[in-house]
């Protein structure tokens, strides 16, 4: 069971019910549960979308698209049914925030799904969790069953004639690619999770061909809180153009790893040194991957930056999924780069060539390099390969593999060069058998 942490600098909005037993519907109701959705039913879709726009909430999955705007893109009239799809396929290394939401506050996800449904005129929502979260599916399934039993889901919800909403929950079966929104729709339709070509975008042609809103679980779980406190008030908590708070998972070499809720724009250095207790064992900090493994790395002297989409962009990296991974001075960047790319090579769905071949060649080259058989040309070749993957794939997985690789080469080229000087690993991270596919 994940341990909950806390720090005085936290602003607990989405996490305010964590640890309070809110997976139980009675406790959730005691803590203002299902008040927001009733307010949404009374006030209407336009009010909901306006509050969401006023909140400045930007998608918590990684792309940071304004949520209110996303909801407003769904056509008001549609021949096909509309759907809400909650993306709980949290698989980006460094990221475990949705894990905590599903465990401690599943009703917030359910209520948020209903709110999104009311806003766009959908009568059905899906909550899709990653396959590895099967134990959390049980928590969410129980919460959904309890909501049905109370008359909050199904026909005429909350006793309102003609207001219907159903929720179906399921897990995937292990595929990082399914976290991409169109691949998620394919997977939910019972197919291989490969991306669809866009346009059309899901807001117009999505699940089962109907207009669909797809949001990350944290985004959806934020909606009830926003409606209760008011969009404008929520926006005030964050920084400019980045409303509210977000859950940051701080992991790696820190004293107090954990999921913390901090206001958008909170200083990254402070988050590491004060909130998470600094570098483990008092060692020197070497680098930080700020928003999940796909984000370009920051060096120790680049951490004085605000944690929001715009400031991180200006710093040459991304806020991503909010998964901050801290590396101390003992980490070999060559080894870390190889472990990162091993993941992307494993998870590439193989649909487009630049990603399928690119990640494979990056893994092969980095493996040889790490094992001590690299040459100086390899460094430029790695860079060349990564540059040629950027922007050339249907979905962002190609970019997700290329961006950190380019970051490692750009920021730590000297370390790669030094590594060439007679370095031989005692133990291969990837064996030759694995590399040529002879292993399982």
């Amino acid at each position, binding site marked *: 069971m994940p341990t909950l942490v806390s720090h005085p600098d936290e602003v607990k909005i989405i996490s305010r019910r964590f640890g309070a037993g809110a997976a139980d519907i009675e406790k959730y109701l005691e803590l203002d549960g299902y008040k927001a959705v009733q307010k949404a039913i009374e006030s209407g879709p336009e009010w909901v979308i306006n509050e969401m726009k006023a909140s400045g909430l930007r998608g918590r999955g990684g792309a940071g698209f304004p949520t209110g705007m996303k909801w407003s893109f769904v056509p008001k009239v549609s021949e096909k049914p509309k759907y809400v799809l909650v993306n709980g396929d949290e698989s980006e290394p460094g990221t475990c925030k949705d894990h905590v939401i599903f465990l401690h506050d599943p009703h917030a996800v359910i209520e948020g799904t209903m709110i999104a449904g009311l806003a766009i005129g959908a009568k059905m929502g899906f909550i899709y969790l990653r396959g590895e979260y099967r134990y959390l599916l049980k928590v969410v399934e129980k919460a959904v069953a309890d909501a049905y039993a109370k008359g909050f889901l199904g026909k005429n919800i909350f006793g309102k004639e003609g207001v219907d909403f159903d929720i179906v929950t399921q897990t995937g*079966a292990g595929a990082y690619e399914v976290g991409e929104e169109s691949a998620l729709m394919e997977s939910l339709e019972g197919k291989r999770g490969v991306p669809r070509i866009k346009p059309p975008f899901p807001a117009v042609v999505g699940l089962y061909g109907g207009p669909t809103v797809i949001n990350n679980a944290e985004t959806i779980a934020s909606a009830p809180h926003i409606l209760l406190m008011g969009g404008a008030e929520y926006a005030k908590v964050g920084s400019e153009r980045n409303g509210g708070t977000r859950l940051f998972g701080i992991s790696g070499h820190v004293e107090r790893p954990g999921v913390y809720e901090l206001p958008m724009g909170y200083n990254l250095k402070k988050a590491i040194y004060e909130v998470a207790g600094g570098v483990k064992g008092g060692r020197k900090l070497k680098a930080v991957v700020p928003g999940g493994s796909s984000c370009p790395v920051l060096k120790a002297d680049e951490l004085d930056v605000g944690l929001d989409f715009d400031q991180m962009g200006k710093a040459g990296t991304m806020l991503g999924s909010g998964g901050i991974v801290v590396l101390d001075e003992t980490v070999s960047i060559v080894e870390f780069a190889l472990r990162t790319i091993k993941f992307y090579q494993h998870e590439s769905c193989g649909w487009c060539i630049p990603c399928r071949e690119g990640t494979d060649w990056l893994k092969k080259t980095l493996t040889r390099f790490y094992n001590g058989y690299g040459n100086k040309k390899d460094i430029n070749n790695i860079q060349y390969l990564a540059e040629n993957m950027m922007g050339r794939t249907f979905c962002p997985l190609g970019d997700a593999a290329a961006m950190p690789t380019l970051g490692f080469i750009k920021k730590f080229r000297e370390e790669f060069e030094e590594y060439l000087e007679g370095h031989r690993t005692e133990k291969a991270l990837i064996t030759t058998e694995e590399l040529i596919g002879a292993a399982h």
Partner: protein
Amino acid sequence: MSAIANSIFSPETAARFDKLVTLYPVKRSALIPMLLYAQDEVGYVSDAVVHEIAARLDLFDLDVRGVLSYYSMLRTKPAGKYNVQVCTNISCMLRGGYEILDHCKAKLGIGHKEVTADKLFSLEEVECIGACCWAPAMQVNYDFHENLTTVKVDEILADYAAGRGKDVK
């Protein structure tokens, strides 16, 4: 009730499948959940499982196999009663994930995707399992174990071996 004769699943699982196909606007959507529940019961996705699920969803066996081969949690060979999955991805790696994996290999005497002779345990090195802030971590069947040390791993494995471990399915 399904028109498909239930041949390999328990009545509970067959009833769950009958319900699953009614939940979605399209029957095929039930495919991945069905494969997972079938695997939980049979131990792996056998040819018979593929055939019956295909029949239940009006699909060709090939459609099912195409999906089956894509997802890393679905397997076509039996695993141990307790499938130990050790994460070595970046957050776990930084806090000793590889040491935990090596320890499991030595303790169980098996390698990646191998099964112990008594079929009690199988071992897998897996990609990120979403327990980054509680690293290093592993899953046994669907139960999470976090903040691992080699001592803790020994205790966990001993608990499962003695039938005291949680068998989440």
